[in-house]
């Protein structure tokens, strides 16, 4: 009896046959089959879905692609800040979503103030400066708050990863609660300046100009970060810090200053994402902070933490999944689209525990 039980325990704990190449091959085969099936489904089958198969409704397919790119762009803006902070400082910024929402609220309040209305303004009332100025204010405010959080709470706990995560969780609780008190629970959107409104037509389907604007902003942020990280001295130090912080410190570089810069940059990206997303894909309400924290987490888990390329790849993959799942699931089951997020997470982690571009630290 004991032998049987011990044997069972050994099997359950995988004490035998640890190196099983066929398992890995099977996983690969399964994932390839799943990808092929999804592609075939979208292109040819896709019966009874809201879009229909791509061969018979190409314009809907294009629209989904544009939607995917838009949402990917927003994911990238927000998640690149998250991954930057994590990559350099090993700090999981759990208050990232709170900074996102806070910047949105600040921009909204100032926009209403500038336009001189109390509720959502008509888009023709919103002049150029009525959107850009609140954007700047929102970003500056959360950058300052980010710097405050980093200097007061995180700096002296550097290296204690879990403790920092718990600290930022506590901060996100306080921030979330205070935002409910000050800004209420009603969902409100920010309004784009009137230049960004409007539509272009292509194969009989209208595409919002603001979508191209969002994609452009994301490309701009990506380009800026690439230039910053690869072409400037600060970026060089940041990259060196990601690889080996003590060595950078030993070379006489003020690491604390670099940390502060990175944290401010990360917070600013959260704020930028908050204002743009609040103007385009989401309204500002309690719970949005958690939602966008989830988006950041999924992107960096898929893409690999601390890698800018990983953030881009993760955003693209996750954006495609979130845009295509509701459009290409059978209409009766469209609300199961959240499962697609879980599936993509599971598939990536099954193959690469550190994400697509991640590497063991």
């Amino acid at each position, binding site marked *: 009896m004991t032998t049987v039980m011990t044997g069972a*325990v050994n099997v*359950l*704990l*995988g*004490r035998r046959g*640890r*190196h099983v*190449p066929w398992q*890995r091959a099977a996983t690969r085969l399964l994932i390839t089959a799943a990808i092929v099936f999804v592609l075939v489904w979208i292109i040819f089958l896709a019966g009874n879905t809201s879009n229909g198969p791509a061969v018979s409704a190409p314009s809907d397919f294009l629209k989904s692609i544009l939607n995917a790119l838009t949402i990917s762009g927003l994911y990238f803006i927000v998640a690149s800040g998250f991954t930057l902070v*994590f990559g350099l400082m*090993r700090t*999981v910024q759990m208050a990232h979503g709170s900074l996102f929402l806070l910047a949105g609220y600040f921009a909204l309040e100032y926009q209403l103030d500038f336009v001189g209305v109390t509720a959502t303004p008509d888009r023709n009332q919103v002049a150029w400066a009525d959107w850009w100025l609140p954007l700047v204010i929102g970003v500056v405010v959360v950058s300052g708050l980010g710097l405050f959080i980093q200097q007061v*709470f995180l700096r002296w706990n550097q290296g*204690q*990863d*879990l*403790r920092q*995560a*718990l*600290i930022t*969780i*506590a*901060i*996100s*609780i*306080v921030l*979330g*609660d*205070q935002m*409910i*008190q000050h800004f209420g629970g009603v969902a409100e959107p920010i309004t784009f300046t009137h230049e960004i409104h409007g539509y272009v037509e292509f194969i009989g389907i209208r595409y919002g100009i603001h979508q191209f604007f969002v994609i452009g902003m994301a490309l701009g942020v990506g380009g800026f970060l690439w230039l910053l990280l690869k072409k400037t001295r600060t970026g060089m130090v940041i990259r060196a810090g990601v690889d080996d912080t003590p060595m950078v410190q030993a070379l006489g570089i003020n690491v604390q200053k670099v940390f502060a810069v990175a944290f401010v940059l990360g917070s600013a990206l959260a704020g930028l994402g908050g204002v743009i997303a609040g103007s385009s894909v989401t309204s500002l309400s309690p*719970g949005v*902070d*958690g*939602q966008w*924290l*989830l988006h950041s*987490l*999924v992107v*960096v*888990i898929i893409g690999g*933490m601390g890698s800018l390329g990983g953030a881009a790849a993760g955003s693209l993959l996750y954006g495609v999944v979130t845009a295509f799942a509701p459009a290409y699931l059978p209409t009766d089951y469209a*609300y*199961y*689209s*959240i*499962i697609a*997020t*879980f599936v993509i*997470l*599971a598939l990536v*982690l*099954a193959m690469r*525990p*550190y994400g697509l571009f991640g590497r*063991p*630290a």
Partner: protein
Amino acid sequence: MILTRLRGDPGETPGGVGSGDYARNTRKLAAALFVALVLVGVFQAITPGVFRHYFVDVVMTRSLLFGVAAASIVFLSAFGGMISLAQTLMYGVCAFTVGNAVTTGGSKGLNLGWNPWVGVALGIGVTTALGFVMGLIASRSSGLYYLMITLAYGVIGFYFFGQVTVLSGFGGVNQVRAPAFIGEPTDATNPERLFFTVLVVSVVVYLLLRYVSRTPFGLALQGVRDDPVRMNSLGFNVAMHRTWAFTLAAFIASLGGVLYVWEQRAISPTTISLVGILNLLIMAIIGGVLVLEGAWLGAFIYIALENYVRNVVFLNNWIEEARFRTLAGAIVLVLVLACPDGVVGLRKVRGAVTLSLIGAAVWGTVGGLQEGDRGAIAGVIVGAVAGIGAAGLVGWLAGHRDTARGVWSRLLATGRPGQVPARN
């Protein structure tokens, strides 16, 4: 006392952590404090009228049932070195399954109308199976990655139950029936039955987790926590140990889910939202995420604060109803900054201050409840003095104050990805 004989605490690991006296002694203290509180509850339950009913029916019952769920977090972090934020989802999944299985109509969900016990079995089974799958997916990660993956699970689960209207929708499942022996919530004599049920489950869960931590599996799990690379070299399958630990934790959390749905008679996605996830984590942190008994103590402190803090007039004017979460967040912030081991691992000076503040808050609120403002003020003073006294007691009992802190720093230090060797 049986608690003093139980061993296998995380302090007893080689590598300079120390003798484990500190952990053992603070555990003794925490257990004694909490047993005293439970005895107050039992006393009240059998002699109604001495304390307010509310204390047993709501505060103690909820403390114990959230303690069960929080214990699953503490088990994973203390013995497996994994901080899981998916435990709220686990008890939510179980509660939703029970709700869908036993409701007979007039509510969202499948309304299958099955026997409550069948619903319970199904709920526990589904949750444990889901725990296995999720644990397997996350099993090759550790530290911060694990935290983030499990948080993603939790938030995805919230949106799942919110969006899938067949199972729940954002309104949630209502009118969930409990087994006959618990009775209906309207019956005045019945809350005690639920209280004793929850008490029995808590004790069983506690003993089970202590037992598991001393089995070969539990010891290997602690080895995985301390040095996954070495354990891997020794032939232990690190990923499967994490997976089974997560599965066990899901099972424990599902028990909490059953009790929760019996207590509330309803379950909605709001319960498992980010707020709910963080609430459970707060309880585990307050109790100190490395000491099993701390789960129940932390849950009690959180629930007591939540329920009584508004009875203190000067606090109530400052914190309106919804602002309780700001207070909770601030408490966690202070705890994490000042005494990272939670209330069972307080350091001498700062610990005394914190403990006396907590004591003042709890006693003041209880006093305020019983006697009004004067009672509150007296309670605050008594609580502060008692808190300082208790901190002194902790220091005296502990001797090796740095032991538990050492364990905590080890956990923090292992919180880096890359400690786990990639298999193959």
